[in-house]
């Protein structure tokens, strides 16, 4: 750790976790999951830190981070809205949901509102197909969406 990182409790936490995972076979992806949990996303300095601690080439770490959709390299808004674009939701009009969110929030998939409150992302099936169309805000699932329900739900998160 360099001087800045020693003072940063997040890096100390990550170092502790890496210590625990160092002994398992193929630890990189598990460690990256934990790192994202701590930092909210995986900035370049975290990639470098993980590479050094696990003694894995930085190019490998970067290759893994960019290969998997789940890992984010950009900071997120306060709330993350995941619109389901799975088959069941598609058949029941998920594209309308994206359209309505775009009108309501002024952002498209992959973007964050100017006030930093919402990030809009897409997922493929959250396993609640029976309630399609579906979106998740943080860990909460909202189903049977229409314009009215979307507006109502967003209002709750705007408070």
């Amino acid at each position: 750790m360099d001087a800045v990182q020693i003072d940063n409790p997040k890096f100390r936490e990550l170092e502790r976790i890496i210590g625990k995972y160092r002994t398992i076979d193929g630890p990189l992806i598990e460690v990256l999951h934990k790192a994202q949990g701590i930092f909210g996303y995986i900035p370049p300095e975290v990639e470098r830190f993980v590479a050094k601690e696990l003694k894995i080439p930085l190019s490998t770490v970067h290759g893994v981070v960019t290969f998997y959709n789940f890992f984010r390299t950009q900071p997120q808004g306060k709330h993350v809205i995941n619109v389901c674009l799975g088959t069941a939701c598609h058949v029941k009009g998920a594209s309308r949901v994206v359209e309505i969110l775009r009108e309501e929030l002024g952002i498209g998939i992959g973007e964050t509102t100017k006030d930093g409150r919402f990030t809009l992302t897409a997922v493929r099936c959250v396993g609640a197909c029976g309630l399609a169309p579906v979106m998740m805000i943080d860990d909460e699932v909202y189903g049977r969406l229409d314009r009215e329900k979307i507006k109502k739900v967003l209002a709750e998160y705007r408070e």
Partner: protein
Amino acid sequence: MPKRIDVLICGGAACLSSHSDEVRAAIVREIEAHGLGKEVRVVETGCMGPCELGPVMVVYPDGAFYIRVSPQDAREIVEEHFLKGRPVQRLLWETPEARRIIEERKQVPFFAKQKKVVLANCGLIDPENIEEYIAADGYTALGKVLTEMSPQEVVEEIAASGLRGRGGAGFPTGRKWKFVADAPGSVKYVVCNGDEGDPGAFMDRSLLEGDPHAVIEGMTIAAYAVGASRGYIYVRAEYPLAIKRLKIATTAARGMGLLGEDILETGFSFDIELRMGAGAFVCGEETALIASIEGKRGQPRPRPPYPAVQGLFERPTLINNVETFGNIRHIILNGADWFRSIGTEASPGTKVFALSGKVINTGLVEVPMGTTLRELIFGIGGGIPDGKEFKAVQTGGPSGGCIPAEHLDTPIDYESLQALGAIMGSGGVIVMDEDNCMVNLARFFLEFTASESCGQCVPCRVGLPAMLEILERISRGAGRPDDLDRLEQLAETVQRASLCGLGQTAPNPVLSTLRYFREEYEEHIREGRCRAKVCTALVRYWIDPEACRGCDQCRRACPVEAISGTPGKPPYVIDEGMCVRCGTCREVCPFSAIEILDRR
């Protein structure tokens, strides 16, 4: 001590999202408030199936099935039903056709036509309590295997049962086990594929959440049979509840000597580690999954060598799907002959499906193989809502195909579905009605596979976007006369030349829709017409002057100010040049005055 009343509240993902946890808390509060704590037991269970109707709960011994329960209903249920013995009629499940209230769980058609084997415990036991699993004959099969059977006998029993892999391809499980058992090497692995990548499927999730020990027991039996001492369960990161319950389950099993060193004091040792996926569809493919567990980019590699010979960390590895493992204990306990008595000759046993889309009862269903699509969709599923016409059913997700109405009487088994150009796949079943466009659907799946291609091989990396470009053109009404032939040629090349199953099967949705709905493609190309009114470039919005009352709502709602009119002075009109066909006006119109017409 048995209680007078058992209350099972569904804690599956869909019910949780409609706040079944709050319902449970409210019920528990009311039970305490009425001093019924000693008489009533409340259990949170895995998915019961009818997700559309959640939160759902079942009360035994009456078998009353409550749907859409809210926390406010708790007092009435406890006072009327638990205290006075009168089920709350307004919350009982009624069939859509007859609106007849059915009180007994076994009489509800959604359940009556099903046969629960793999899901037997889901929705009945508390998945976080190992003792409930053991009380339901859990770990008995493991005990039997370890004390009464040789590894070879186990492999033979599974082979004799005719069980085929439930992860999609239907490879005979017994044969696979034999390959791994026969592979030389002292270190071997057992891997459970819980990646469930099909975007519209949640069978494996429900089993992992509802009965995690069944999967662990199946893996442990497999490990004994093939001679493995280490196992991995690879679960999608999108399934946090499944991961949590697996953690609880493996810890509990270890604590009782059912996992880890010297299992049941037989000298056999086996332990399981959980690994989280990270959102890449291709990681469901077995060689990519292995790379991912090793901490690498999830890129498939050519086979052979097969994982059975050279898999995880270069060692012989058995990979099976979650549901495949879920079948094992039942086969060991009841015998191969019993298993063969269910389903069909070539596809014995049951299959779990996630039924969704345009169908009245959505959710998880388990039926014997050989059940027809019609029984699944119209019997169990209750048919198509809103009086619409059935158009097609999609099975097998992005690797599968669309099946039209004339083949509804096809029995569901591996070979029959394949003959129709679809596949069994992992069990996602999406029903579509007249409002769904087949060109749009093919495009949807191709967008998915093209963006999930790992990019290693050229046919898949270049071929899929080329196909997608043609489909996009057709959706815009700019299709060319020879586009369908070119699409077919490209599809065949990608199928034949791709490195892994992703590319080899990705053209299936296009080919099957071309096979059964070619005239719909041709309409798009020749007439610039989308009969389902889904392809926005081919439709226009129109205000019916007879129906418009001049309420001004559409004008205010229109995001591009394409509508003009004066309040109280109908009709309003849409400027077609400005209209972006977003559909907002049609949603807000209180008089259903706005129609979607063909553009041309």
